[in-house]
């Protein structure tokens, strides 16, 4: 009972917003939760200090050798504590909240990093992680670099007379297409690259779309992810679907792919946005 009182007291304290900048430059054993957070840590040269990652971390390749504490929204307190962390840096959507409360109760600081699918969110996250691990200078350099790249991209985009209408297909479920709306990584990267996500105004998240809605949206370019769903002849298969065939994208055979990592916003976002920009405005048609 006394323990649960201590615990609830700690929880109450953790609920009060910490205005003071959280900084733990001496942290030697960091558990990194969330792919982008892990990428930032490694980009800041702090990879040596990371002792465990979550399932969503895939990059750089070195993270695959680290112990995996599970999916970021289903963390187990004991699992995380078992790797002996002295700092936990996590995406703000990590959880469940009970686990985070328990970790704080075990006197392990938890730094939450806000994320969103925008360029500003990326540089803010880089600065936040940097100050949390006492690498403020490196973080400032990296964040400024990302900002400069994105600003240059924005200048190039301003030259584009008419934004290309792009539709991102997450998956093809036997002809039923799962398409990106707004508030998705796909929407964010398409917007940064200077494209116009055709389903952005229609809905939020990924939804299975009605064929006629696709025809009505008239996409000029179909975008998909490389990776597991990718296979020989996929482009032809998608472009031949009745819903796609009559759209400008279907008629012109405009089909392109981006790496799945481009959908998570991190230090590589500016580079992904630049290459997507080049793809969108200089793509070669797929023959069919």
């Amino acid at each position, binding site marked *: 009972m006394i323990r649960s009182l201590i615990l609830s007291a700690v929880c109450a304290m953790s609920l009060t917003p910490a205005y003071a900048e959280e900084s733990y430059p001496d942290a030697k054993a960091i558990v990194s939760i969330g792919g982008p957070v892990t990428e930032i840590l490694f980009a800041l040269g702090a990879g040596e200090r990371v002792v465990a990652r979550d399932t969503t971390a895939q990059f750089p390749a070195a993270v695959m050798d680290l112990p995996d504490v599970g999916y970021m929204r289903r963390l187990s307190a004991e*699992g995380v504590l078992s790797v002996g962390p002295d700092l936990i840096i996590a995406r703000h959507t990590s959880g469940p909240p009970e686990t985070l409360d328990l970790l704080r109760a075990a006197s*392990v600081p938890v730094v939450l990093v806000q994320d969103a699918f925008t360029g500003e969110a990326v540089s803010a996250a880089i600065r936040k992680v940097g100050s949390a691990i006492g690498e403020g200078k490196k973080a400032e350099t990296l964040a400024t670099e990302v900002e400069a790249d994105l600003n240059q991209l924005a200048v190039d985009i301003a030259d584009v007379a008419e934004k290309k209408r792009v539709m991102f297909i997450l998956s093809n479920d036997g002809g039923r297409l799962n398409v990106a709306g707004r508030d998705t990584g796909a929407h964010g990267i398409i917007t940064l690259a200077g494209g116009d996500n055709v389903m952005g105004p229609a809905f939020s998240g990924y939804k299975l779309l009605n064929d006629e809605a696709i025809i009505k949206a008239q996409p000029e370019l179909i975008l998909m992810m490389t990776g597991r769903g990718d296979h020989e002849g996929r482009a032809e298969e998608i472009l031949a679907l009745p819903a796609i065939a009559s759209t400008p994208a279907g008629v012109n055979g405009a089909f392109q792919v981006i790496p799945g990592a481009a959908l998570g916003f991190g230090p590589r976002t500016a580079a992904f946005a630049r290459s997507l920009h080049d793809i969108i405005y200089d793509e070669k048609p797929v023959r069919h």
Partner: protein
Amino acid sequence: MVALEQKRPIKTSGAVAGDRRSLSRLLTGVLCAALALTMLLSLGWGAADETDVLAALFGDPTMRDEVIVWDIRMPRMLTGVLVGAALAVSGAVMQGLFRNPLADPGLVGVSAGAGFGAVSAIVLGGFLPAPVIAVVGHYLVPVAAFLGGWATTLLLYGIATRGGRTSVATMLLAGIALGALTGALTGLITYYATDDQLRDLTFWGMGSVAGASWAKFMASAPIILLTLIAAPFLARALNALALGEAAASHLGIDVQKMKRIAILTVAGSVGASVAVTGGIGFIGIVVPHLLRLVQGPDHRGLLVNAALLGGIILLLADAISRSIIAPAELPIGIVTAALGGPFFLWILLKNRNLVEM
């Protein structure tokens, strides 16, 4: 071949029939000891294996060890025992009440209702007015799951009761209809869920004891305990009911009262269990059957032993779920189904002539 099979005497007497109350009592003793051992194992074994459990229990532990043993393992272990017991006893009571070996608490709508409540809370929770969120905080999902399960059962009970008599058949059929309806509503809400929420929904359905906390334990334990205490008093009535409702009445059993107690306590304990741990399958069916094969169908010993064995099995499944891919954790529903399924099948094939009546 068929003729040969039929010539073999079917073993329904001798070692199988007869008074097995002493066997049942012996089993109770063995299971009590096994449960105590499993509880100790559950406290002493986990992903953080360098934890000094003895110091945390009796001595002067570090903050980290104290949190691991007292705030993580202890509520988790106690929740596991109670939920395992509740699921197993509820399964046994339902099988007795419906006189059907396949009955499980899902039949009274509690699982479907709880699922609907949980999904609604996960997806629509953000739309609640701020004062409500301030009160329930992150206990919104368990509260909604419990209320959903309980409300669905009350509705079913109301539908199936006419002129002071509850028809078990109506309840079964109405349960299917209500299940379809809540399934449709759940599907509709799922359609509007975001990616993060979809992940949460999927994991909720697979169950886990990992989210156990003192607050959740304190809230669910009284409801679950009520059922565990009420169940043995139902035993004699359930035995009589095996002869049919009319025969049970002639034996002096108030069948209606018994149905009411059975249905409402099962809804309460399963609702509370599901609220805390999410969906954990198979324990409600496997445990009572296992015990019936050993000690016969007499509910007097069966219900007590089901509670003990349910607790043991859930704790063992939890031990596997938290160690097999440590430091990550496998949802426990996957473990109970993956181990329970083949094991149940093996028991079934081995004891065919006992099951086929």
